């Protein structure tokens, strides 16, 4: 077997193994996020009827805000987000208070609740609220 063939085989093999490793890493990332959602479902503390109604009301307000954002231009979006800063902050704090997960998972949850994109933030908050309300 010539040296070129050996190099080709070895480096090609390393390349394929590295790609498979990348695929495994991605799948593990996905599993971690799915486990976070499962933990939220299993360990939430929304037992009070009043808190339940609070969350429902917040969910409705978030949906209304999202619909307004979708219809607005950039200037209007900035104004809406500025006016609803209190609402966003209240939902983030409430979710972080009621969700009872491990610190590493809580860090990821906080990162997603405070993501840069406004629509992404609202969608994710709505998703978590729905998870909390299903369990309750």
């Amino acid at each position: 077997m010539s040296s070129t063939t050996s190099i080709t085989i070895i480096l090609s093999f390393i390349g394929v193994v590295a790609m498979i490793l990348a695929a495994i890493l991605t799948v593990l990332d996905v599993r971690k996020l799915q486990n976070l959602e499962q933990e939220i479902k299993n360990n939430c503390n929304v037992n009070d009827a009043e808190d339940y109604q609070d969350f429902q009301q917040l969910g409705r307000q978030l949906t209304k805000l999202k619909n307004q954002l979708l219809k607005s231009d950039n200037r209007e979006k900035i104004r809406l987000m500025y006016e609803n800063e209190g609402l966003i902050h209240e939902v983030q704090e409430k979710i972080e208070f009621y969700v009872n997960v491990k610190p590493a998972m809580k860090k990821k949850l906080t990162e997603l609740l405070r993501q840069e994109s406004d629509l992404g933030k609202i969608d994710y908050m709505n998703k978590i609220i729905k998870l909390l309300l299903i369990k309750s």
Partner: protein
Amino acid sequence: MKNKIFNSRLWISYVIHSLIPLLPLLVKGIIGSIIDGGINIDVPTLSISVAMYTIGTGISSENFLLFIVYFFVACLLLPVYGAIESSSSGASNTNTLIFTIACWLILVVAMITSFFESYKSYVIECRPLEVKFAQNLIDLTSNLSKTNNS
């Protein structure tokens, strides 16, 4: 609330980020089949396409470790191809075949990984699409479907 796999954001982003970059390879295959009568993607096109695809997928990944792995794979492919071509015993059928198989395997795994990345970003993390016209199209269709239902 389930993370649905039949999510328009997921599939639109997958087409834009992962399938459209493979168009040059597809066009080369189609033109080759028209001219030569059989699908014949030559090794230079394949190696460069796969290397660029992995770099592009790595750059769009949020995980730094994944970016390193993708970049490493891309850096492996081009020198291997160069070694095959420049060596005196280099471009033999065996070497070309081994390299071609490796490139196709890497491409398939990269496409699968890219799908999982899109699923993570757009379905689980609820991030909106960066491409404005695609996001507007999704919002328009979801508003229309809500109007029809009401």
